């Protein structure tokens, strides 16, 4: 079983978001980078499947060298080797194209990634990769088991879940509770230092959208506190001031 897990390198959820260069560039100063939270679920499930069925897990990141610590963390969690495509992830199409190239060459049985990145929240890359390489796509996957070359999947739908089956190989966008996040242990951290991390140059530079400018939402006003014995006042405010009921 050869599994490819695509990971994003994103600011930790607690990060303060700010922009520089006339609001055209994300301000990386003081930012702690992490494996995208959804990708982290995909990675955890990939490592579990490897332990259960044998095989290898390759972690793939499209990004610049500042993402290497995050790739090392994926190796510490249990990936056997890693590939970094050495380029800023320009847009979803560009990233999908890079992943598709690796998928075509690699002969993977399973390609997992998060349902979306937590920076651009597009939720597009898995769908694009599937179409580019001609494999089925399933997303968002909340349960994934493999039996005799067939995957049994639970996919989240509005108000519930849907159960489906698909033959390997395929592409999955993952979310919880597919697996629990794994915290690397000391042995994992030590071994990650010597696991292979291959750096490849990108294929082409085609994009389909281009950034003009970033902006931040307006600051939230002060909270209006209401006495617990006066819920009627809250109802009046919601009706007459906020006009939401």
């Amino acid at each position, binding site marked *: 079983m050869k599994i490819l897990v695509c990971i994003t390198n994103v600011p930790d959820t607690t990060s303060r978001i700010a922009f520089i260069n006339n609001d055209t560039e994300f301000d990386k100063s003081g930012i702690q980078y992490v494996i995208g939270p959804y990708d982290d679920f995909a990675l955890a499930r990939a490592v579990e499947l490897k332990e259960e069925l044998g095989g290898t897990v390759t972690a793939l990141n499209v990004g610049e060298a500042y993402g290497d610590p995050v790739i090392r963390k994926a190796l510490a969690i249990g990936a056997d080797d890693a590939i970094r495509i050495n380029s800023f992830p320009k847009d979803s199409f560009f990233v999908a194209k890079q992943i598709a190239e690796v998928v075509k060459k690699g002969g993977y049985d399973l390609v997992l990634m998060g349902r979306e990145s937590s920076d651009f929240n597009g939720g597009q890359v898995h769908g694009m990769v599937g179409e580019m390489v001609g494999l089925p796509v399933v997303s968002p996957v909340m349960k994934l088991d493999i039996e005799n070359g067939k995957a049994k999947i639970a*996919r989240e739908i509005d108000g519930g879940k849907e159960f489906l089956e698909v033959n390997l190989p395929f592409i999955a966008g993952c979310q919880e509770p597919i697996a629990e996040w794994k915290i690397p242990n000391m042995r994992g951290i030590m071994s990650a230092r010597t696991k292979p991390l291959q750096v490849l140059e990108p294929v082409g530079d085609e994009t389909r959208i281009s950034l003009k400018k970033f902006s*931040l939402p307006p600051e939230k006003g002060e909270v209006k506190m209401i006495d617990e014995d006066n819920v009627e006042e809250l109802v009046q405010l919601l009706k007459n001031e906020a006009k939401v009921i």
Partner: protein
Amino acid sequence: MSVLVFVELAAGEVKGSSLEAISYGHALGLGEVTALVLGITDERKMTGLGKYGAQKVLYSDDPKLEKGIIQAYASVVAQVFDKVNASVLVFAKSSLGDPVAANVSVKLGASLASNVVELPETRNGFVVKRSIYTGKAFAEVEMQEDKKIIGIKKNAISLKEDGADASVEKVEIDLSDEDFQVQITSEEKASGEILLPEADVVVSGGRGMKGPENWHLIEDLAKSLGAATGCSKPVSDMDWRPHHEHVGQTGLKVAPSLYIAIGISGAIQHLAGVNSSKVIVVINKDAEAPFFKAADYGIVGDAFEVVPKLTEAIKALTN
């Protein structure tokens, strides 16, 4: 030039978010708006889409398309896009719409932008504003290609409701076995509840509710408001509530007009799922709960006393 809108059904009804997508498609002013309906609904509901801005409805009631299989839907949407000579496809963000649109964008060679929050700026190129960093920022992006796919976030536009009936026509589609490699075996769905991603009012409970046996308080308040119910991550992790109700960074991101959080402290991961709400009410017995800083209105008090009183006050107002 024309606009195609991908319409989703839920239990035979057109989803509210798809109505927004139709109104958005109309407001683009880029020619005739065709709504594509896959699955089974009645004719009256389809002609009614005219009210929201569709001139034409194309549908397929092929039983193979009753369930949302990503490849099959993508194949159909791409075919119909060409058939109606569309230049823009509009869809509403959903767990089905996102991957379908991504597949279609590759088939068509189109620019794709999702989580779009307002109409495009077209004076200089075709620029849309999308929500990024889980609601904490926006990016204005130019869609370079001639063909464009826009995924809208809830409340990206107010509904237009004054159009005339739409014409309705069945569309012929070529489906291949390739499109049906994924087989849906069954589904588990709560019936009759208001869908959380679609809801205009959401009432959510956290650990402060002390256990699933107390959820009737949340449900009663939700019912009085016609609201959907949600929960925090610990509540879903402990199986007090199903995962599809989990609101937050790794759960659903909601954007209702009113979000009421009860017994939720307001961890940053939870806030990431609710920060696009118009108005936030927080009820928590801990005056120091960080959620109050993100709220518009707050009550410090015991949920078990405050919530039933609030439910009664809402009922008194609506009766």
